[in-house]
C-alpha cells in the first residue's frame, strides 16, 4: 500500500536489513530525497522501491566488503528548498551518495554538492552537461543523458528510413519546461547534419490539455513524432496522438513512458508506440529474479510485489547496482570507511558494468560521468515493452561537443 511508502518517507529513514550488531562504520548510507507526493509521483514510488529492494538484496547476500547498505528516505515534494534541507541532513548522517530524482531539485543541489564534495546520482535526469566529470566531479548521470537519448531516437529513425533523412519531417512534441526543451540542441544539430525538417510543439506544464498542439502536429503531417514529457503529460500525448491518427510505430518517446501510461491510454490502443529504453523491463532477468527470491518472496520488499520488474522499478535497481559497484571498488581499492571521495573514485573506475545485462554496459572515468550514452528502442506490444534494437549509442560527437560547450559555460558562470 502506498500509504506504507509514504509513512516510510515521512519517517525519514529506514535501515534495510542491517543487522543491529553491525558497527556504524560498516554501514554505507545512501540518501534518497525524492518526490513521493507531487510532480514525479508517477515514477518515484516504483523507482525507489527498486532502489531499496536492490540494497536489501545486496545486504541479504552479505553486503560488500563487509559493509551493508542503508537507505535514508525523504520526501521532497519536488521542492528545491526541501531538497536542500534533505541534503544538509544527509551530510550530518554520513550519507555518501544522494539521489534526488528531480531535475529542478538536482539543479538546486549541484552547486553545493560540487563545493562540498558530495556525490549526487542523476541517472536519466538532471543536467546533461554533468557528464563532464572535470567540471562536475561529484555529479554522476551514470546513464544516457537526455541528449544521448535524443541521439539514440534520431538514429533509430534514420535506420528505419535507411539513412535517408533528408526531406523527412520530424515533430518534437514536448512539455514547455527546461526538461522538455533539453533535447532541442541535439535535434537541431542532427537536423542540420542530416537534412530533416524539425518542428517543435510545446504544451504548458503539466500537459493536461494538449489538443491544440496535436491539431498543429497533424497539420504539419510529420513522418515521425517524438514526445518529450513525463507523468500525466505523456498519457495525454499518447491519447491525443492516437485520436489524431498518428501512427504509433512512427512515434517515439523519451525514457519516461511506461506501462502505467499505456494502461491509462488503453493497452491495446497504445500498441506500437516506441520509446527510448535505458534499462530492460520485466522480471526475466537474473538480478530481478535474485531480488524476488531473496527479498520479495520473503516479505521484505519495499512495495507492492506486482510492481517488481516494472520499467521504473528496474531503473531504480540499475541505479543502485551502479552505486553498489562503485562502493565495492571504493572499499576494495581505498579501504574503509567509505567516504564520499572514496565512493567518487570507485564510481570513476566502474568499467564495462551492465548489472548482468540489465542495462547497456557503462564505463565511467574521471572525465566521463555518462559512461557511453547507450540505450535501445523498445515497443509496446499491448502487454509489455519489447526491445526493437540492441543497445547502441549515436551521435556522441555531437552530444559530447554540447557537453563540453555547456560545461564550459557553467564553469564560467560559477
Amino acid at each position: 500500500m502506498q500509504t506504507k511508502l509514504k509513512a516510510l518517507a515521512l519517517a525519514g529513514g529506514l535501515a534495510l536489513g542491517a543487522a543491529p550488531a553491525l558497527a556504524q562504520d560498516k554501514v554505507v548510507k545512501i540518501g534518497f530525497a525524492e518526490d513521493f507526493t507531487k510532480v514525479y509521483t508517477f515514477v518515484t514510488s516504483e523507482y525507489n522501491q527498486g532502489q531499496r529492494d536492490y540494497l536489501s538484496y545486496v545486504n541479504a547476500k552479505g553486503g560488500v566488503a563487509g559493509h551493508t547498505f542503508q537507505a535514508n528516505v525523504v520526501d521532497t515534494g519536488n521542492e528545491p528548498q526541501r531538497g536542500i534541507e534533505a541534503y544538509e541532513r544527509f551530510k550530518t548522517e554520513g550519507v555518501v551518495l544522494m539521489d534526488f530524482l528531480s531535475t529542478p531539485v538536482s539543479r538546486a543541489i549541484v552547486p553545493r554538492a560540487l563545493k562540498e564534495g558530495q556525490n549526487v546520482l542523476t541517472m536519466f535526469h538532471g543536467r546533461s552537461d554533468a557528464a563532464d566529470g572535470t567540471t562536475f566531479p561529484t555529479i554522476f548521470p551514470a546513464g544516457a543523458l537526455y541528449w544521448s537519448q535524443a541521439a539514440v531516437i534520431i538514429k533509430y529513425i534514420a535506420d528505419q528510413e535507411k539513412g535517408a533523412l533528408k526531406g523527412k519531417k520530424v515533430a518534437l512534441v514536448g512539455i514547455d519546461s527546461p526538461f522538455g526543451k533539453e533535447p532541442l540542441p541535439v535535434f537541431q544539430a542532427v537536423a542540420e547534419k542530416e537534412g530533416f525538417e524539425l518542428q517543435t510543439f510545446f504544451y504548458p506544464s503539466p500537459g493536461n490539455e494538449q489538443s491544440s498542439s496535436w491539431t498543429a502536429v497533424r497539420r504539419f503531417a510529420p513522418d515521425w513524432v517524438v514526445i518529450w514529457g513525463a507523468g500525466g503529460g505523456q498519457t495525454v500525448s499518447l491519447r491525443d496522438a492516437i485520436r489524431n491518427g498518428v501512427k504509433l510505430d512512427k512515434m517515439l518517446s523519451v525514457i519516461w513512458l511506461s506501462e502505467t501510461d499505456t494502461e491509462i491510454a488503453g493497452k491495446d490502443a497504445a500498441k506500437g508506440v516506441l520509446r527510448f529504453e535505458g534499462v530492460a523491463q520485466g522480471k526475466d532477468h537474473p538480478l530481478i529474479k535474485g531480488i524476488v527470491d531473496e527479498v520479495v518472496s520473503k516479505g521484505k520488499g519495499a512495495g507492492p510485489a506486482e510492481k517488481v520488474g516494472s520499467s521504473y522499478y528496474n531503473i531504480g535497481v540499475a541505479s543502485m547496482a551502479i552505486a553498489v559497484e562503485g562502493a565495492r571498488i571504493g572499499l576494495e581499492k581505498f579501504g574503509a570507511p567509505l567516504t564520499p571521495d572514496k565512493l567518487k573514485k570507485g564510481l570513476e573506475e566502474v568499467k564495462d558494468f551492465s548489472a548482468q545485462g540489465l542495462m547497456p554496459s557503462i564505463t565511467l572515468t574521471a572525465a566521463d560521468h555518462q559512461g557511453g550514452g547507450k540505450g535501445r528502442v523498445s515497443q509496446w506490444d499491448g502487454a509489455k515493452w519489447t526491445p526493437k534494437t540492441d543497445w547502441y549509442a549515436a551521435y556522441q560527437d555531437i552530444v559530447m561537443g554540447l557537453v563540453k560547450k555547456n560545461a564550459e559555460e557553467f564553469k564560467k558562470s560559477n
Partner: protein
Amino acid sequence: MDLFFELAELSISGALVGLMYTLIALGIVLVFKASGVANLAQGAMAMVGAYLTWACLTLAGAPLWVAIPLGVFAMFFVGRGIERVALRRMIGQPAIMVIMLTLGLEIMLRGLLPALFGPVKKRLDIGIDAAPIIIGPMLIDRAYLVSGAVALILIVLAVLYFNTRQGVMLRAVSDDQPASWSVGISVERAIGISWGLAGIAAAAGGVLWGSIQGVDWTLSLLLIKALAVAILGGLDSILGVLVAGLILGVLENVAPVYLERFGVSGTRDVVASLVILATVIFKPYGLFGREEIERV
C-alpha cells in the same frame, strides 16, 4: 487543411474544453452566489470526485452506470460536509479568512487523496470511444464532444434549478441574507446546498477530465482555469461562466498555435492569467456579474 478549417477545428475543440472548464467554474459561482465566498477548493473537489468515482469503479467493482452517479452524488455530501464542518464555523470572520480556509482545504485534499489511493495516475474509462469524429478535413475529439455536451446539459439544469422553489430560495439568500432570515429562509441550509451543488459540479468536471487525462492530483490544477472563467463571466452569473468558458477555451486553444509560429511558446497558461488580470483591472465584476453599488 487550410487556415479556415484549422481555425474552425481549434475553435470547436477550444469551445468544448471551455464548457468543461465552465462546469468546474459553476461550483465557484454557486458558492459565491449563496455565501459571497470564493471557493478556492473547487479544483481539489473535482479531483476528489474523480478519485471517488474511480474507487467505486475499480476498487468496489461497481458498473459504470452506478459508479459515476455514486461518485458525483457522494460529492454533494462532501460539499455539504465541508460547509457544515469547516465553513459554518467561520461565520462572522473576515472574508479573507474564509477564502484562506478554502485554499487550505485545496492544499490538504491535494495531498490527502494521492496519499490514500497511491500517487500513481489512475485510469478512468467512462466508455467513450477513442476514435475521433472526422468532418471533412476537421477532427473533433469524441471525448471532448461528449464531455462538452454533458457539461452543457448540467449547466442548463443548473439554470433551470434556480427557477425552482429551492433555487429561488438560494437566489434570495444570495441577494440579501438578513432579509432571507427575516422571512424564515434558512440561510445556513441554503449555503450548505450551494456547497453540495458545487460538489456535484466539481465531481462531474473531475470525472470528465479524469477520463481524458487519468486521475491524479493534477486535476486540482483546473482551479486556475475555473477561476479565470468565473472571474471573466462574473462571480455571480451562471450565464456569465458559460460565455466566459467558451471565450477562454477558444482563446487558449487558438492563440498559442499562431503565436508559436512566431516563436512565442508556452502561451496557453498565459492566456488564462491575462484573462484574470485584464478582467480584474478593466471589468472587475466580469462580463455578466452584478455590480455592487454601496451608499457611502
